């Protein structure tokens, strides 16, 4: 969805393109670099908020029987601290680097869907503001960032606190999934010529793994939150024990998300370190393919270990043992990464910059966090450690010692690229040492506190438990961390005003972002580079020296044959390689758009409306729908829109749709799993066999199957350019979709007449939510088809637009196959 904004070549393209620097230009920006900066600034602000929450908690816990804050305030503080740091600080910090650096590192001009990128950011901001607005109405979430049901149900948390939490988490999830799809397509499909997957920088690889984790892990928690929302707003029984529900459902759904989330938080930092260490050791990453495969394995196994957060719930010895073993297995690829980093430093020529300090700090600190993690991979040990300060210490060694140290390494490393100025290295090192000391003073004693039994999430503790002294030390340490963060802010402001100007390549970098100016022009590269291998820019600079000095061990050196020849060729010619200047005179840049922020405002209004009045929900939803239509259609006739084939030779939109459908598999998988897990648990009737009408459903199933046939016929017609048939079949598909919805409306009303509603029993809750969400998907599909039909009637759906019909078709068929599964699993199986 690239609009054209023709920009003349040259370093002053920004000025020439009329891209200003006013507030409006930031609101409407679709430039990945600016969006990256927006993410970074927002993340820092929320990081400060979360940090202040932590400091208040530490003040309360500095002494026994303290009264700095009360119980409810403290509970709100730890809930908001966790939620904020995870969703509003570390994730967007990573997103900032991802946005800014991934296109540069793969030699692209922007992301695949620049406006979608802006939409993701604004939705994130809407969710973040909405969550924190809870403070101003005196109802901050207070049931923990993990929100264990049934404490979160209306019965035990009657206030709006939990509503703020569950609504904003859904909004933030939507933002993350949209961004995830966008970046998967970007990385797969927008690589510069020669950038094979194995030549991608490790940071880009980790970004790719993380985006897959996001796209696949958020649907389960979204479903869990939808259940909670329905329980709280509409009286369903998903977490109602008296109706037969199993409270562990929430815990499973939460941790199926929650464990991959740990890797979502840590893998970007691993990626950053994997770039920083080679640069400052002046030596390639040791065993880069193994580091990449380890990251992929960690991501994959990350979906199979969630229950190690639940060893105390009583899953039984078999499940405990199984999840314990898989969890221990994950330690292997993690350990491999650490050893490869050590081997990268070994034999290098280490330049001790601030960025390197933080990267080395990560190795040391994360090792501690990783190893304490191995300790509670063992269920018996975990039963003594879980929910104590030992675990608090553990995950802060992972999230501060790992993620935050990595992100600071990235900040010092890429700051000159982003701002064009250098940070003060001396102040940076002071900041590093203060953080290292403050962090260890805060969290190392917490291992001990946990070992002598101090539980988590307690707002106070009595004297005489032996916990007093080290709690005080921990509190003092926390202020050390705060001082360090303050010094970073000072350094940043100083640098922006008076920092030394940075060259394009201040660190003698190895990857493509150092090949363009600091900061990069709006179009990133004047000409797209040709990629010769891993560390392509280093090869470009050092040529034969780098190539000949390299000892190719293991599988590290494969895939360089053609590139090797090219290397020889251009070094012979004595000039840097670029792809042939295809569009030599103009670079297509996406035009700014204000629809993303309007859509996000609509979503924020709708969320607020859920707490105020249904009319506001409708108003917000209308704004969102209208702006999304405007968004989708604003560049419809743009010629730049037609050809979006990328590295894979496939249209971006098609790759995006398949990625999204993968995410949808997880969404419907979770809904179906819940239906099946709750089968037969309803304590009152009516039960499925008394009420399900198989003949009627068979007819509607047949109808939906036939609509899929019409859909492919429509696509074939559009591809042939047969407009008459295309119109006919599109109309037919939409009509059959409407008929299906009619069947569903009939089914729902007859069930309600027979006494089955959402609120009747578990069967009613699971049945209506599952089939209702399917119906909502069908409705969305019909709306999409009608839009295409209108475009066609206006003569605006030519052969060149076939991919638009194709992606609509993919969506439609997916909805069909979901129904195939539902028909069998819900209706036919007795």
């Amino acid at each position: 969805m690239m609009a054209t904004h023709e920009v003349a070549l040259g370093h002053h393209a920004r000025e020439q393109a009329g891209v200003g620097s006013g507030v409006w230009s930031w609101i409407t920006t679709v430039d990945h670099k600016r969006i990256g900066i927006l993410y970074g600034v927002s993340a820092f602000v929320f990081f400060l908020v979360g940090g202040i929450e932590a400091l208040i908690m530490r003040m309360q816990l500095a002494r026994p029987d303290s009264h700095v804050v009360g119980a409810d305030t403290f509970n709100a503080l730890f809930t908001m601290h966790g939620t904020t740091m995870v969703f509003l600080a570390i994730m967007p910090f990573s997103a900032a680097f991802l946005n800014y650096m991934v296109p540069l590192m793969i030699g692209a001009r922007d992301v695949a869907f620049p406006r979608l990128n802006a939409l993701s950011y604004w939705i994130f901001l809407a969710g973040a503001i909405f969550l924190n607005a809870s403070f101003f109405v005196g109802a901050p979430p207070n049931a923990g960032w993990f929100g264990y049901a049934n404490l979160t149900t209306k019965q035990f948390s009657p206030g709006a606190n939990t509503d703020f939490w569950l609504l904003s988490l859904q909004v933030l999830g939507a933002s993350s999934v949209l961004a995830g799809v966008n970046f998967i397509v970007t990385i797969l499909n927008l690589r510069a010529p020669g950038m094979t997957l194995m030549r991608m920088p490790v940071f880009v690889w980790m970004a790719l793994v993380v985006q897959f984790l996001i796209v696949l892990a958020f649907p389960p928690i979204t479903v869990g939150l939808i259940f909670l929302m329905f329980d709280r707003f509409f009286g369903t029984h998903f977490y109602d024990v008296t109706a037969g529900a199993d409270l562990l459902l929430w815990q499973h759904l939460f941790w199926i998300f929650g464990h991959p989330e740990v890797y979502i938080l840590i893998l970007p930092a691993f990626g950053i370190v994997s770039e920083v260490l080679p640069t400052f050791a002046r030596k390639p990453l040791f065993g880069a393919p193994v580091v990449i495969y380890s990251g992929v394995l960690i991501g994959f196994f990350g979906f199979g270990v969630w229950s190690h957060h639940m060893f105390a719930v009583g899953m039984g010895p078999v499940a405990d043992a199984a999840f314990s073993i898989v969890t221990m297995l994950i330690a292997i690829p993690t350990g491999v990464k650490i050893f490869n980093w050590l081997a990268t430093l070994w034999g290098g020529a280490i330049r001790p910059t601030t960025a390197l300090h933080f990267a080395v700090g990560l190795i040391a600190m994360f090792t501690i966090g990783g190893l304490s993690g191995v300790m509670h991979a063992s269920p018996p040990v975990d039963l003594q450690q879980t929910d104590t300060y030992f675990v608090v210490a553990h995950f802060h060694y992972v999230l501060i010692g790992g993620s935050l140290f990595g992100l600071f390494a990235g900040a010092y490393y890429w700051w000159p690229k982003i701002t064009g100025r250098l940070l003060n290295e001396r102040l940076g090192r002071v900041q590093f040492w203060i953080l290292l000391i403050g962090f260890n003073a805060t969290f190392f004693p917490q291992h001990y506190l946990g070992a002598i039994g101090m539980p988590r999430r307690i707002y106070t503790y009595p004297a005489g438990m032996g916990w007093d002294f080290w709690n005080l030390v921990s509190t003092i340490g926390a202020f050390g961390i705060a001082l360090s963060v303050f010094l970073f802010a000072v350094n940043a402001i100083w640098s922006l005003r008076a920092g030394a100007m940075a060259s394009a390549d201040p660190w003698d970098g190895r990857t493509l972002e150092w090949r363009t100016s600091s900061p990069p022009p709006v179009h990133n590269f004047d000409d797209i580079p040709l990629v010769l291998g891993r560390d392509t820019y280093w090869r470009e600079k050092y040529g034969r020296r780098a190539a000949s000095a390299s000892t190719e061990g293991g599988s590290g050196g494969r895939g360089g044959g053609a590139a090797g020849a090219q290397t020889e060729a251009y070094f012979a010619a004595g000039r840097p390689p670029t792809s042939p200047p295809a569009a030599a005179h103009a670079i297509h840049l996406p035009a700014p758009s204000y629809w993303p922020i309007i859509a996000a405002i609509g979503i924020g209004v709708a969320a607020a409306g859920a707490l105020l009045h249904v009319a506001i929900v409708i108003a917000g939803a209308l704004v969102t729908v209208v702006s999304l239509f405007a968004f989708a259609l604003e560049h419809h006739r743009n010629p730049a829109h037609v050809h979006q084939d990328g590295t894979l030779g496939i249209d971006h939109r098609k790759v995006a749709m398949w990625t999204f459908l993968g995410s949808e598999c997880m969404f419907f998988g979770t809904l179906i799993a819940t239906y099946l897990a709750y089968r037969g648990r309803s304590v009152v009737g009516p039960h499925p066999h008394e009420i399900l009408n198989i003949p009627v459903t068979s007819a509607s199933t047949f109808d939906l199957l036939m609509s899929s046939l019409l859909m492919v016929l429509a696509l074939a017609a559009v591809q042939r350019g047969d407009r008459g048939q295309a119109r006919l079949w599109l109309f037919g598909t939409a009509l059959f979709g409407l008929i299906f919805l009619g069947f569903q409306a009939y089914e729902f009303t007859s069930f309600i007449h027979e006494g089955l509603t959402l609120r009747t029993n578990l069967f009613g809750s699971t049945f209506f939510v599952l089939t209702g969400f399917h119906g909502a998907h069908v409705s969305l599909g019909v709306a999409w088809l009608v839009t295409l039909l209108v475009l066609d009637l206006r003569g605006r759906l030519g052969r060149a637009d076939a991919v638009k019909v194709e992606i609509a078709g993919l969506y439609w068929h997916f909805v069909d196959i979901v129904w195939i599964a539902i028909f069998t699993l819900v209706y036919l199986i007795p």
Partner: protein
Amino acid sequence: MTEIPAVSEPHSDAGHASVATYVKVALILTGVTALEIGVISIRFLTPIVVPLLLAMSAAKFALVVLFFMHLRYDSRVLSGLFIGPLVIAMVIVLALMSLIGAFVTFGR
């Protein structure tokens, strides 16, 4: 146009199924659906009705994905993007069912 040449489709020149193929697939889908409905009313099939239904459902699912969604003719990358998550989703469905189902017999 973004068609990738078919890798292993002999009777398709542009990497594309013909309208006739689509109609054939639709007929098979209809037939299998009819069979599904038939199977549940045949008493002597009761012991194996669940695996039978699951197999038929999976077959329908596969037909739609392979032909209507063109996965059979499209890039392997797209297959990976869909099948990977599908497998993870199915494993999680089974794990969730057994974890929660097992609790029923354990706890009650």
